[in-house]
């Protein structure tokens, strides 16, 4: 067992982990931050995406011990300080960018990482960026619209 500590959503977090403990397990099981999901066992689905030191990372592909000392952000840390939905979260609700909600945390975290690097992505750029995030419910249509809206590129509020 190794002792690790990190900052998660702005707060210090620490724990004892085995070498093989994945970051996603540490977040879900030790810290009880269950918003980060596990949808596969081959690093394909993106349900587990979090930010580690500002970069989007699939938390199922990283050992918890490797995040020792890191600054980690999860879906639980994406709302505004007053608890209201952040811009991307709000855009997902406004444009019906989620159905069952299972892929959603990963989608929001990926979208946030995309918009940080590319504040005005085209539809094609969004689609390409989301290649590592599978959604079985929405057909992606409204996820694309939500991300376009969050980037200020869609003015109409009604989802089509």
């Amino acid at each position: 067992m190794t002792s690790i500590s990190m900052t998660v959503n702005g707060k210090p977090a620490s724990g004892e982990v085995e070498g093989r403990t994945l970051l996603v397990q540490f977040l879900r099981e030790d810290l009880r931050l269950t918003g980060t999901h596990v949808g596969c066992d081959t690093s394909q689905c993106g349900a587990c995406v979090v930010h580690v030191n500002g970069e989007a990372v699939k938390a199922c592909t990283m050992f918890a011990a490797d995040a020792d000392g890191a600054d980690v952000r999860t879906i639980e840390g994406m709302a505004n300080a007053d608890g209201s939905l952040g811009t991307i979260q709000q855009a997902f609700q406004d444009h019906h960018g989620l159905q069952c909600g299972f892929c959603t945390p990963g989608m929001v975290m990926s979208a946030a990482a995309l918009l940080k690097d590319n504040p005005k992505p085209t539809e094609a750029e969004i689609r390409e960026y989301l290649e590592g995030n599978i959604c079985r419910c929405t057909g992606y249509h409204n996820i694309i619209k939500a991300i376009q809206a969050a980037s200020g590129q869609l003015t109409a509020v009604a989802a089509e």
Partner: protein
Amino acid sequence: MPKDSGIGASSKRREDVRFLTGNGNYTDDHSMQGEAHAVMVRSNVAHGKILSIDTSAVENMPGVLAVFTGEDFVEVGGNPAGWLIHSRDGEPMREPKRPVLAHGKVRHVGDAYAAIIAETVQQGRDAAEALAAATEIEELPAVVNMAAAVANADNRVHDEIPDNLCFDWGWIEDNRDAVDQALKDAPHVTTLELVNNRLVPNAMEPRSSIGEYYSSDDSYKLTTTSQNPHLTKLLVCAFVLGIPEHKMTVVAPDVGGGFGSKIYHYGEEALVLVAAKKLRRPVRWTAERSESFLSDAHGRDHVTTIEVGATLDGEILAIRTNTLANVGAYLSNFSTATPTFLHGTLMAGPYKVPHVYVNLKAVFTNTAPVDAYRGAGRPEATYSIERAVDKMARELKLDPVEVRRKNLLTPDQFPYTTPVALVYDTGNYQATLDKALELADYAGFEARAAESKSRGKLRGMGLSTWIEACGIAPSHLVGQLGSRVGLYDAATVRVNATGSISVMVGAHSHGQGHETVFAQIVADKLGIDEGAVDIVHGDTSKIPFGMGSYGSRSLAVCGSAMDRAMDKIIAKGKKIAAHMLEASEGDIVFEDGSFKVEGTDKAKAFGEIAFAAYVPHNYPLEEVEPGLEETAFYDPNNFTYPAGAYLCEVEVDPDTGVVEVVAFTCADDFGNVMNPMIVEGQVHGGVVQGIGQAMIENTTYDENGQLMSGSYMDYAMPRADDVPMITVDHSCATPCTHNPLGVKGCGEAGAIGSPPALVNAVIDALNRGGHDVAHIDMPVTPSRVWSAMNG
């Protein structure tokens, strides 16, 4: 002006807030004090005789608390099939026992024959691996190919079933001779052999179940990923474990998608309950994705020959299909209904066809069970018809649009009784066809095709005009057809003393947004604010009863139950209001949230009536009970019949065979639409599942029964960059005539109408490019398309 609340408004979904902030409450998010973990030990051979399982090899491993094998469940019941189908000769279907854990034989890769309960998942996995090594299984030849399965009487999935045949079903047997004759006499017969490829549903949340046992009152609780907790409760209690139903609560909390795969009761649910009782600890099991591939019920997997008899100008005279349908190794709960009554009954499509006959043989194989997957039987019927009609048009050198027009039922023909025993209540198939053609700019297609050609690409357009039967289903009818359950639904509307409302519904929401839509309907009818209504679902201890959500039935059946319960609330409110307003009950009308004496300005607000019902000081206690809570069960008197027209436009790269879907247009008739935003989202999702089936998804087993597509590396899921934006329209609505909301259901449409439109488009593109290609089986992968073009 779009409405901003109530029926017809695109109310934003209230459930989104918890999902968007990481506060969803999925089964695996629960943490139980003192929980133990179950790990299943699964067969890695498709077919084998279990010679020995040496549990002593693992009992003392670190963290191991218990080991279960099939032996432990010999005394309990099997997981039954929900429909009893009879063969053409009148014999009942063959129905082998489906045990909690395999006993004696394993019958597919992934068939669980043992389970480890351990302190941690990792310890459980280590022990599962060790137990697998301590198990002797004599591998037997696998039955994989359906045609071979029925031809070879010696190689048996179930020893007692010699030809691996579950049933040989004819629909309708009395039609058979007339259809044979009509095909013999037809000026033209189009014949098409096609495969409806096997799919893995792949809800993004893997299955998960937690069992709890309370020794204080000898009761159980199962928290599980289910689309219908009441049915799971019934199955696990009454059929499998013999637990009295009043000692069981089943909770399906937030569920991350289902698409059919979470309708069914699975062995893991029974296992965690038994283990919880044995250990007196909560026991949790969560599938890894690779287990989901191996053990979730798969979908489709039909091999069909369809013959369409027609006049030379394209009038359809008769349709005959012969199908082999894979049911896998065991009968999953809906597996016998899906290829029969959800498939054969739809074989007239939206057309006026005088003669239809369907023969379907359901075949056991050494593969995972196959059951309903989004659309369930209806996509298979639609694909067969719409591919064959397209092929017929091409063979007769007729315009595929005009051939549809010639055969579509016209609005004056409803209600219409098909030769396969359904009665379509309403529809306007011309309207949806015209709308799709308009939205897809069909008229401009030739110009776009020319432009594609200038870039060296082949452009094609494919059409499908589809129909389905939803709102499942009238109990008396399904009872005659073999259903072992009723298919009504239930709702309780509880008006609280202060006027807010809790509605307990039997439908379960796992992405469909019921918490929002059902509240819209209640608010609309009772004239109160949506925010004052809460929808409670998924907990059998809170809800009267329910048959769950599948078959696009939630609104049509459960929504109707809710509507009926509100009628009772209003009727009772009128009695109370009459007393308080000193008027006669017959003079009370309920409008805009108030009970009024007709023609006067005397009125009581809904909240005042609710309060009076709970504080009955001035109240007609002799005639009316206090309280304001009503339950209704609603049993539909027909299916509903959503229909529509889909147009798919593709570009094919002739050098590589790569197909790109460049546009997809849907014009649907869902009857009345409660929340357009949600309806459109349902269509988007369904269409992309259909595009997935048609273009990239495929489940393959090798000849030894090994699953070759058992992970997201090998099973191609549609990703964001595989699909286009989708144009959807639902303005051509003909409300359902027999349910109070006039709704038809929208959940499956996209997955039903889209595969044939896409394949038709690819065939069109190739033929326009001078390639005489009549058919390509799904998925239309680059290699299949390239091979078709290059002979």
